[in-house]
């Protein structure tokens, strides 16, 4: 094949930051929402729990049951996508050399991180809308939506940082196993399905310090019209900042 002279004449330069951010975040969000396993984890399981726990009285809940279940399912949705889904995707992206590829473009590191954060927020927004619609159909009567949005955003950042910490440091298979185990443990014993207050008191004081418990408790308070206590915000911020700082040291490109 011959190419007209001048076809490849150098004209280097970085793209516009907003466009880079938009295309990167859109690509990442699309990939998540197109991936069958991710959709199962981030949407189908939370929806199944929402409907199941609302309609079947397997655990004791104050009624209306849907008002008690929805905040927990929203917290689970954040755990599923921002932490487990993110960690697994990052583990395999590293295996496939994606980070190296993107690091070799003009995309600055801060945009690389920001793009993933925005994509994570978009996915959580999609989850929140779908879960809320189904919950409303089940008779959910929420209040305090602004607090909910703020908590979901902070929860996404916190669990996202934890997900990057896990997915950025270990081998893809190890990440896959650990991310699922942590998901399962936090779901059952991390203050999500069983409220922190209903746990044995020795355990409750420890579990209350977990980000999963903080997010669940915060969302429960917010959606029943209360103001989430300071401890919720502090716990989520502390875990997020701690994980983020550690992750900047441990995250590897491959």
């Amino acid at each position, binding site marked *: 094949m011959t190419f007209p002279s001048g076809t490849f004449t150098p004209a280097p330069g970085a793209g516009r930051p907003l466009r880079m951010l938009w295309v990167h975040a859109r690509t990442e969000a699309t990939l998540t929402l197109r991936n069958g396993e991710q959709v199962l984890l981030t949407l189908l399981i939370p929806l199944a729990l929402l409907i199941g726990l609302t309609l079947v009285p397997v655990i004791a809940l104050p009624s209306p049951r849907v008002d008690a279940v929805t905040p927990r399912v929203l917290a689970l949705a954040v755990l599923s996508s921002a932490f487990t889904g993110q960690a697994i995707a990052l583990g395999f992206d590293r295996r496939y050399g994606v980070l*190296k590829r993107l690091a070799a473009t003009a995309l600055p590191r801060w945009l690389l991180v920001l793009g993933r954060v925005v994509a994570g927020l978009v996915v959580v927004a999609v989850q929140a809308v779908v879960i809320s619609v189904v919950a409303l159909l089940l008779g959910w009567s929420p209040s305090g939506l602004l607090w909910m949005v703020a908590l979901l955003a902070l929860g996404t950042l916190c669990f996202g940082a934890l997900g990057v910490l896990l997915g950025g440091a270990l081998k893809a298979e190890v990440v896959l196993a650990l991310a699922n185990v942590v998901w399962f443990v936090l779901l059952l014993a991390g203050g999500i399905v069983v409220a922190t207050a209903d746990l044995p008191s020795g355990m409750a004081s420890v579990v209350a310090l977990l980000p999963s418990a903080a997010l669940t408790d915060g969302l429960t308070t917010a959606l029943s019209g209360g103001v989430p206590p300071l401890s919720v915000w502090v716990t989520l911020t502390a875990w997020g900042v701690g994980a983020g700082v550690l992750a900047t040291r441990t995250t590897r490109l491959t």
Partner: protein
Amino acid sequence: MSESAVEVADVVKRFGPTTAVAGVDLSLPRGQVLALLGPNGAGKTTTVEMCAGFLRPDSGSLRVLGMDPMSAALRPRVGVMPQGGGAYPGVRAAEMLRLVAACARDPLDPPWLLDVLGLSGAARTPYKRLSGGQQQRLSLACALVGRPELVFMDEPTAGLDPQARRLVWDLVSALRADGVSVLLTTHLMDEAEALADRVVIIDGGRVVAEGTPAALTTEGQMLRFRTRPGLDLTLLSAALPESCVVAEPSPGAYLVSGEVDPQVVSAVTAWCAQQGVLAEELRVGRRSLEDVFLELTGRELRS
């Protein structure tokens, strides 16, 4: 703008007990093509990854377009085709190229580039379902789409069919003609001879030879012939001029290197007659890079 595109001086890189690169020097003048040639494990990828800013050397100095290879200001000016990988497992070929193109100010047109690389039909195929050769070509597209001044290609033709390989050669020639500097690695001799202005041969992390393909290969001629293995070469050595060296690099394949003139040829055939053997496939020619490598390292370059 007169400095070299790449300047590597006495660079060392260790991985635990392994010294992958043991003091490599190389220099790529702007607008030229340099081939880094060597067998598996020679240290080619490690060298390229240091130049591309993926790895920090343990010692030595590296300058790329006059800058530290890790410098962020360098990223838009350099295109990198790593050895293997480089896309999300689930991303479609066209999506990936569009993403990389979005990072550049004035990119090549992604659909055009996909078409050039024969990937139009696979534009909507997820990366992990592309064939190995298609993944290679997508990786090359990503390296070129930003119109870089300098391109690093790590084994750009590994695993490609002859037609795709030819295409990559044409692309490299077009890049060079348009003033782009290219540093590529290969373990294919003909590739280095066909594409490169300069060849650097490395083995065991060290540079064993360096120069233009012509200088490396015309420094003497070769006479080759095949006959019964294991003949005693002392008589032949004695009959040849001082400048000639005779060897049997692999059983039954004999090699005379040095100033090969008609007298040398006649001495060889006379010696064969004395030994009562027939010299088959006797030919005189320029050394190939293959021969140079064999001579320098005592080993064959796998191809």
